[in-house]
């Protein structure tokens, strides 16, 4: 990992590659995200290796086979054997990539055996979350103040990646997401969960996650959805089951209280 970052760092201006400026995909906190990450690294190393081979051959030729060194050009212009070899070898490499990719994809698409269902609805430009069986729902809106966006105030650490009310999920439980939209197409994305799914108005998409570690995971809308597309973050807070139960109880009380108040008026 370290060597890889250092390698990439050469390409950037010195000093850019520090911890606060990540330059690779997060490993994430689910089995799926870790599978996706290793798939990504496998592909990255494979294409890097192919690139090194191809470019070394090319630059060797550029250095050696030049007119200024007084060489006489060869005249060969085809070889069925060579051409067959470099058609077959890439094909084999593709199979090597396709096998784990297929496996990961099949796992990602299997949302059976879930413990909890959250319905996610995209709006221009906020998210709505509904815990279907618990009857709890709320909106989640960007909480970064306008003054920071307009450069009137110092930007804080989670600039544009913070919301007024986070989506709270229990760790170690399989959570199914039902994703849709109320207006245009959005996409719900949290990189550390490796979940990205379009929210299409009139249709319901399915995705799922099973978070291994408690923590706060931040993402953004990933499908252009109009003026404030860049200003509708996703924040997930993963907590242990007991804490989740407490939180849920509190939400239920709050919702019932609000409903009672509404009835009394």
């Amino acid at each position, binding site marked *: 990992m370290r060597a890889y970052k250092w390698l990439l760092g050469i390409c950037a201006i010195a000093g850019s590659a520090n911890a606060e400026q990540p330059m690779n995909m997060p490993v994430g906190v689910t089995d799926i995200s870790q599978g996706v990450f290793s798939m990504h690294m496998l592909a990255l190393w494979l294409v890097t290796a192919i690139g090194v081979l191809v470019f070394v051959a090319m630059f060797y030729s550029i250095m050696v086979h030049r007119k200024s060194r007084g060489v006489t050009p060869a005249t060969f212009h085809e070889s069925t054997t060579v051409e067959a070899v470099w058609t077959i070898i890439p094909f084999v490499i593709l199979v090597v990539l396709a096998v784990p990719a297929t496996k990961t994809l099949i796992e990602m698409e299997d949302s059976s055996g879930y413990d909890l269902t959250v319905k996610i609805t995209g709006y221009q430009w906020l998210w709505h979350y509904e815990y279907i069986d618990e009857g709890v729902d709320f909106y989640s809106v960007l909480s970064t103040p306008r003054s920071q966006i307009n450069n009137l105030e110092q930007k804080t650490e989670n600039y544009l990646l913070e919301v007024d009310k986070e989506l709270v999920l229990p760790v170690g439980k399989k959570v199914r997401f039902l994703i849709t939209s109320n207006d245009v197409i959005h996409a719900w994305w949290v990189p550390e969960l490796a979940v990205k799914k379009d929210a299409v108005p009139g249709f319901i998409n399915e995705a799922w996650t099973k978070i291994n570690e408690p923590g706060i995971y931040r993402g953004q809308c*990933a499908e252009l959805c109009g003026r*404030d597309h860049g200003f509708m973050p996703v924040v997930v807070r993963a907590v242990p089951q007991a804490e989740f139960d407490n939180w849920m109880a509190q939400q239920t009380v709050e919702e019932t209280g609000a409903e009672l108040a509404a009835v009394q008026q």
Partner: protein
Amino acid sequence: MSTVAADDHHDHVESPYSIKRWLFTTNHKDIGTLYLWFSLIMFFIGGFMALIIRTELFEPGMQFVDPQFFNSMTTMHAIIMVFGVVMPAFTGLANWLIPMMVGATDMALPRMNNWSFWILPFAFTMMLSTLFMDGGGPAGGWTLYPPLTLQTGDALPFVILSIHFMGLSSIMGAINVIATVLNMRAPGMTLMKMPLFVWTWLITAYLLIAVMPVLAGGVTMLLTDKFFGTSFFNAAGGGDPVLFQHIFWFFGHPEVYILILPSFGVISSIVPTFARKPLFGYASMVYATGSIAFLSFIVWAHHMFTVGMPLAGQLFFMFATMLIAVPTGVKVFNWIATMWRGAMTFETPMLFALGFIVMFSIGGFSGLMLALAPVDFQYHDTYFVVAHFHYVLVPGSIFAIVASVYYWLPKWCGNMYSEGLGKLHFWLSTIFVNITFFPMHFVGLAGMPRRIPDYALQFSDFNALATIGAFGFGFSQLIFLYVVIKAIRGGEKATSQVWENAEGLEWTLSSPPPYHSFTTPPVIK
């Protein structure tokens, strides 16, 4: 009518300063020149928009433009660069070169040729004018996905009409190429003796005819959804927003190859000349081009893995997409085998061709990564994708176009360009294009979505770097403009062959070539 026809058959060239000459011309060289200048002008307009985008993205926070205007800049930049720069530039090259390469007098359908060019300035004037309309220009992305695109203000019908015009122009250009290549080849030039530029363009032309009508259908459905109460893309009326994406990408993926196949032809012409060695694997180049064109029709949904497709569909599109790496790899290997044990020199066209091979391959590598559906869920709609397609389009298609201008300019105008300035242009472009687009891989992997006017703090360093690169790249292109104008106005006279080892019929004609290329068919060995 009859007077025009009577004037036509003489070898009579009006002054280059007469408007009538350019407006009514049916000559393939004049029309080629018009296409190329149009493309260069649009390149600077589209580039200016890119610089507006990069200026806003230099630092986190909103500094210069409104988010809505930002969105319309990304939308317009893409439409202009795709339909206004790369496509017309290749049509311009086709016009100039195909008749000379196949030994014809002119294109097969000269009047339609005139029309297909002159539609374009009107189409793009209309497209650009939408920026001043109520509600601003189109801001839903060049992919025009509904329902977002249906929220466009007064601009929508004008945008759709101008896309229809662009499609008409491309289809007519493509018909002309096919008619010329199939009917006007000199006796003895069999299909498998044609230069690769002609081959790649022939295949491109078929792609254009196959998919431009599909785009036209898609945008017309948008129009009727917006103004005539249909519900093609509206779930509430029984439609499906995702249907548009399938239609769009059925056009859009072959379109990607429309933008790159002629480049393959260009590179296959330039590398053998400067390696002083025949192209390696001519036949496999032709078959690889054909395979890529065929595969381009069955991979479209890899642009939409996150849209919620069934597993079987995702697997199919993943495997089909990965297959494209095979014929593309064959091409790159063949170019390197052409250089192998050659006697290379490194004039500007060769430098741009070599830059193309390296950087297009980098774009190909990220393309292979993007093909892997489970990982694409992370890459999709991030700057990783932006880095990918800019690598194949800028140091890919644009470098190939620039390489061909340097390569054939002495033939076109009879004067050599300034080699020193050409090399300076190459090195500045190559350095800055990488400073611009390489960091985009990093921010994309780290989680920065595309098409956002403002971003989280952890993306700031690489964005600042990309902006610096973009300005450097943009201003370096002024050198190109200067070199071209300088060569047209004078300079060292070019010989007929121009380059020591250049082969092909166009190099048997004088530099500049006669107004009607081959009045008697050349003899093919």
